[in-house]
């Protein structure tokens, strides 16, 4: 049985297992129908032209993890931002781990989507926000149909969350191959501030496919600083769809660090509904071997006087492949929009490939929009400069890679995280250069 058929038939059993009065019962049913009709996307679709899911669909994934698995803190501590205090919402094989988590209901909610869906206290918010901006593409629909766990974060009006929130999904490898479908809902109230770090981490060499969906709502003047760390094992694949809706004067920034994994597809969609919104999308991608990352971004400018900034840097070694498909839509009403998009790539080896496809669709007449895209190799002059100072070739290349990625790295606002990502990058590059942050 292929994966699609297996998923569709499993849904019936899954649906029986859930209570009928679940507020999202109808949403789920509609979603599975949508998935059944459309199936997994293929390269025939324009949005998937450069990414084939075939190699990761041909695996007999377990769709429902069998039991509650545990991990020792010492084994996973390295994946937490342990040198600073954080809230944590941690899942192991899709099941909440209270032992590793630190949640709260004190003046805000940092907890589980499963409890939010069950508890009447949250029903009004669920009614208003759940699945309201998530797309209707087949992969998001698949998540909507099956999702039962994830983080639920609600930051009320004027609340400044005092420490970052980490959302971490571990996969243990107790199942031979596993499919995980976490679902996060994040609502940030008027003038509230929050920093969130999201990570998917496999602890096994077994095949893992994560199909994650996150909906984020930024109310008026909300401030959201979001980081995605994608540094998974070479047997783990991730489809990560993030939908962000911004109201007036809100500011939302997403950094995506794609540093590992077998196949990663990022769908990052912003919609600006009010005036004076600011959206920032930044990314560093460092790949090797046969790794593949596809960044598919969309910024939808609906209202006037808004800004968006995109800056994606990619470093591709060996036979790794990358895609940057960035789309900016400026609707007719969105006058005085400033939209900037930058995508720079360095191919370290001859076999590495990047496909870049910037798209601008502008229907307003008084806007400033730009996009720039480069694909190149190391600057020979720069390399010679460093080597002439006694720095060996590989270290010199590393220094240049570091410098290249730096415009993205320097905007990371959580310094402990910045240090951490610096270390990951230095390790990736395979050198130990004494640069400070």
């Amino acid at each position: 049985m292929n994966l699609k058929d297996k998923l569709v038939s499993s849904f019936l059993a899954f649906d029986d297992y859930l209570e009928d009065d679940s507020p999202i019962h109808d949403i789920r049913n509609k979603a599975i129908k949508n998935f059944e009709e459309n199936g997994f996307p293929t390269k025939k679709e324009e949005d998937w032209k450069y990414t084939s899911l075939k190699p990761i669909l041909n695996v007999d994934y377990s769709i429902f993890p069998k039991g509650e698995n545990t991990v020792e803190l010492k084994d996973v501590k390295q994946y937490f931002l342990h040198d600073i205090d954080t809230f944590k919402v941690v899942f192991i094989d899709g099941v909440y781990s209270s032992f590793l988590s630190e949640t709260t209901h004190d003046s805000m909610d940092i907890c589980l989507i499963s409890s939010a869906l069950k508890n009447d206290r949250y029903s009004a918010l669920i009614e208003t926000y759940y699945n309201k901006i998530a797309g209707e593409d087949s992969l998001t629909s698949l998540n909507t149909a099956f999702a039962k766990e994830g983080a639920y974060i609600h930051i009320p009006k004027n609340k400044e969350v005092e420490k970052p929130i980490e959302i971490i999904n571990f996969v243990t490898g107790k199942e031979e191959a596993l499919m995980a479908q976490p679902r996060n809902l994040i609502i940030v109230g008027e003038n509230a501030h929050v920093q969130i770090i999201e990570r998917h981490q496999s602890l096994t060499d077994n095949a893992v496919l994560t199909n994650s969906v996150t909906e984020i709502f930024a109310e008026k003047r909300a401030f959201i600083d979001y980081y995605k760390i994608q540094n998974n094992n070479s047997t783990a694949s991730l489809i990560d769809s993030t939908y962000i809706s911004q109201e007036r004067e809100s500011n939302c920034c997403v950094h995506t660090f794609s540093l590992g994994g077998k196949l990663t597809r990022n769908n990052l969609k912003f919609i600006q509904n009010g005036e004076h919104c600011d959206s920032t999308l930044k990314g560093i991608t460092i790949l090797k071997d046969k790794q593949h990352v596809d960044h598919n971004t969309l910024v939808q400018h609906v209202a006037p006087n808004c800004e968006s900034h995109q800056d994606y840097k990619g470093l591709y070694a060996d036979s790794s492949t990358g895609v940057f498909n960035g789309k900016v839509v400026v609707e007719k009403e969105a006058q005085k929009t400033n939209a900037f998009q930058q995508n720079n790539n360095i191919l370290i080896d001859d076999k590495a490939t990047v496909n870049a496809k910037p798209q601008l669709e502008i229907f307003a007449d008084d806007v400033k929009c730009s996009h720039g895209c480069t694909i190149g190799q190391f600057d020979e002059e720069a390399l010679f400069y460093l080597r002439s100072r006694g720095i060996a070739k590989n270290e010199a290349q590393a220094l240049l890679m570091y410098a290249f990625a730096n415009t993205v790295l320097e905007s990371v606002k959580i310094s402990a995280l910045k240090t951490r990502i610096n270390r990951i990058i230095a390790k990736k590059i395979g050198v130990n250069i004494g640069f400070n942050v």
Partner: protein
Amino acid sequence: MLHIKDLHASVNEKDILKGINLEVHAGEVHAIMGPNGSGKSTLASVIAGKDTFEMTKGELTLNNEDISELDPEERAHRGVFMSFQYPVEIPGVSVTNFIKTAINETRKAKGLKDMPASEMLKLIKEKADLLDIDRKFLSRSLNEGFSGGEKKRNEIFQMAMLDPKLAILDETDSGLDIDALKIVANGVNKLRNKDNAVVVITHYQRLLDHIIPDFVHVLMNGKIVKTGTKELAHELEEKGYDWIKEEINA
């Protein structure tokens, strides 16, 4: 110290250097002058080991060791330093961290341990003072947003830190106002001693008023066509290069 004999070099099979002969001894300052396109910067790059140039013929030795097949970093470890005409910007890496890395890489190549931090700081302070460099400057990203003068001063600062045996200054005077020129020249003069040598590559004579050369060589069409003393530089400044061309053709 530096011995160059019948050196030929080409880029993309186009011959640039066509038989250079040059002997530089410890304690000496040599100036290499010549019109645009004569091969001055190529000569500097070939000595420093830039691999876009192919040395097709000749000898290139430093202290009796053939360095013609060595990588640029290996030449640096043996004491070759080149001050760049256009230093490269490296965002995110501070001047201090860059120079620390360069020094420790060189020490590593010589089988030495990293320089202790306190010693490094002392050295940085001493050399920064020598070149009148503000401490704040040292924490800025390497060459990023530096003015022309700052870039050149930073090159000489690196030279001071690395303490090379052979320093090649490639058009170090270009883009400098007279005050910056004096600071840079003064720095170079303070770094000179009986054990090192300096090769100054320049278009104009004005730098040579401050760094007094022992020998002046004129490079034209890939060859050294005339060698003299500092007076030759003055003559070139007054009369240009045409008279030398005529002299050769005569």
